[in-house]
């Protein structure tokens, strides 16, 4: 068994080398390519969208052919051989098929489906907890997320010892990647690499709960809707809570804005930390911002689907479901030293200028961590 696992990891490493050859080192060629795409494609898509609203339909095949011609041109301008790119994409898909073949991945999916359909009718050893986390669901998705952690994104974690073995703690991280994979990876990191194997409860945006299946799924695997009441409740029970103060703004960042942290809400997380006397631990995630390079966001279509944004990437929605596969970048998670607000009196909570200052301080700390790791990184694909 261990041999086969190493084999998969090697294959994904190989794949990363392929991608690096085709798309370039640490962002030079890659960013030229993707930035070239977003420069003219954005306005073009906007006009197309306006036309679509007027005529009430989008001829998808026309859009696709325009897009492909455009893609070829941009690739040429960025110094990327179209043939290489195509071949790499084919290799990528072939490797993916092999990588995803192992029984554990299929097992996870079938287990999830059976839990979804039959869970109500099973004899439960342990009931769901007060936030709706079901231990059986967590066990079912664990292999899949561990596979992503170990083989696919080859996550390296630094500074995990900065998280105490017990007691309440507020992890604050930069947010990115369209879907909250960063939250999942930090959770896996704490479960696998922390000496006390601590469980992380991560808070996510509430638009998730508008959707059928997705909301229930997120609840069952332990996510909690982000709001001050829920965070306070969890911290009072001495839990390890992960928040992304950038919120939806961070999740749907454009590729051109990557690794520039957005505004940290209105400092709600600082007030929370002061009120509950919780230390804040800054966390930086590098690698997640390239898994879905968002070149443009559609607002009109997003409204139709009831989502805050509908991302357009070089592969999505053009390639359909395949376009939803995240890219195998190399991730680094670094956990900083705890910041304590013990000296701040609860009375000072209404001092908005102070709160904003503290919130900016935390943001700076995370930005510094991100920049440090970006500097160390030689390649998006190989780390």
């Amino acid at each position, binding site marked *: 068994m261990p041999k086969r696992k190493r084999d998969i990891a090697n294959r994904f490493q190989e794949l990363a080398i392929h991608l690096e050859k085709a798309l370039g080192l640490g962002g030079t060629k890659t960013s030229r390519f993707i930035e070239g795409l977003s420069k003219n494609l954005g306005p073009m898509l906007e006009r197309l969208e306006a036309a679509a609203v007027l005529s009430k339909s989008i001829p998808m095949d026309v859009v696709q052919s325009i897009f492909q011609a455009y893609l070829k041109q941009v690739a040429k301008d960025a110094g990327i051989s179209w043939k290489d790119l195509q071949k790499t994409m084919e290799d990528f898909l072939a490797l993916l098929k092999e990588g995803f073949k192992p029984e554990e991945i299929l097992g996870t999916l079938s287990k999830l489906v059976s839990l979804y359909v039959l869970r109500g009718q099973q004899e439960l050893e342990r*009931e769901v907890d007060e936030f709706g986390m079901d231990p059986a669901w967590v066990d079912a998705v664990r292999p899949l997320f561990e596979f992503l952690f170990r083989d696919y994104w080859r996550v390296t974690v630094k500074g995990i010892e900065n998280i105490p073995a017990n007691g309440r703690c507020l992890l604050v991280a930069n947010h990115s990647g369209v879907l909250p994979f960063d939250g999942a990876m930090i959770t896996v990191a704490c479960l696998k690499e922390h000496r006390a194997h601590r469980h992380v409860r991560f808070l996510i945006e509430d638009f998730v709960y508008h959707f*059928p299946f997705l909301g229930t799924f997120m*609840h069952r695997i332990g996510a909690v809707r982000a709001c001050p009441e*829920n965070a306070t409740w969890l911290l009072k029970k001495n839990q390890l809570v992960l928040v992304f103060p950038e919120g939806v703004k961070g999740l749907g960042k454009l590729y051109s804005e990557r690794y520039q942290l957005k505004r940290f809400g209105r400092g709600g997380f600082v007030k929370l930390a002061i009120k509950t006397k919780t230390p804040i631990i800054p966390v930086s995630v590098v690698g997640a911002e390239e898994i879905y390079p968002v070149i443009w966001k559609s607002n009109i279509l997003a409204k139709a689907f009831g989502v805050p944004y509908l991302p357009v990437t070089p592969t999505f929605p053009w390639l359909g479901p395949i376009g939803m596969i995240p890219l195998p970048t190399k991730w680094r998670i670094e956990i900083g030293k705890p910041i304590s607000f013990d000296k701040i009196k609860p009375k000072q909570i209404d001092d908005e200028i102070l709160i904003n200052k503290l919130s900016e301080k935390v943001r700076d700390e995370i930005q510094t961590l991100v920049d440090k790791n970006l500097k160390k990184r030689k390649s998006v694909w190989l780390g």
Partner: protein
Amino acid sequence: MHKPSKAAHTKNIVITGATGFLGSTLLKSLENDRRFRNIIAIDKKPPPFKLKKAKWLPFDLTQADVDQKLASFFEKQKTKIIVHTALLTQPIRNLEESHEVQSVGTMHLLNAAAASKAHKLILASTTDVYGAFPENPNFLTEEHPAKGGGLSPFLKDKVEVEEQFLRFQKKHPKKIVTILRPATILGPTVNNFKTHFFQNPCIPIVMGFDPLVQFVQERDVIRAFIKAIEEDHPGIFNIVAEGVLPLTRVIHILGRVPIPVPTFLLYPAADILWYANIGAIPASHIHFLKYLCIADGTKAWHKLKFRPVYNSLEALHSFIGKDLKQNQITQRLEEIEDAKA
């Protein structure tokens, strides 16, 4: 404020709505308890059982001149405590009647209470007034606004009734106004549109949604009301059991078959059935099958010193005939007494 009040407070009690589940069960408990004297039930119809020491008087709270009659009646009886349970337990198709019974009936009662020497008013509300929304926190506290009124006219009236009570408290700061909000009540004898819903052999659920739900056992609710009658605790209190259950789990424990229906089909179907006099609930209540509406009972413990005996799962079990044993209940009650001290 929180000390048990004197024995005098446990006499001259008026309960409105003696035929509904809450009113009649509370009436029965007060009848069997020697501490309570001079209990009067007012309702259009007589209570469903024979009264021993309590009296029933026919009053219709929706009549235009009922407020004067009630005021002089309260005066004559030296009424001290009014428990208002004369509200609808389920949505009815006649919206006008619904409004008259809930909102206008309450107005008449409060007008009469204002003119009388009654010093305490207790309202039976529900946690449904919070409404089920995707943006609700997992545990709603009493400070959370009651937004359920936006969902259906039935709940809008319930919220309006609460607002009338709160306004009354502001106008009469010396009187004690207590609002109890029980969660969905389950138990061996309870009977309302929610229990009817759970008694269907097949239960429609919203495809892809499996919200957590919360219950409270009927005896715990009555305990909370008796506590509010005996002691003085102004304010709003959630009366809820501990623990939550996913809806599909509830349906399984009940031994029913869940029928997942996509949202876009369920709403129109529910409305058609409702107006065709077949369905038990209008589409506006489907939100409660999709999103969270769970209340936090901490305040009831800290201020009212009320803690439920049953948790949500046990309340559900008692509904299907697997009640706790008497010695278990006694033991838990003792534990609660110990925790208080």
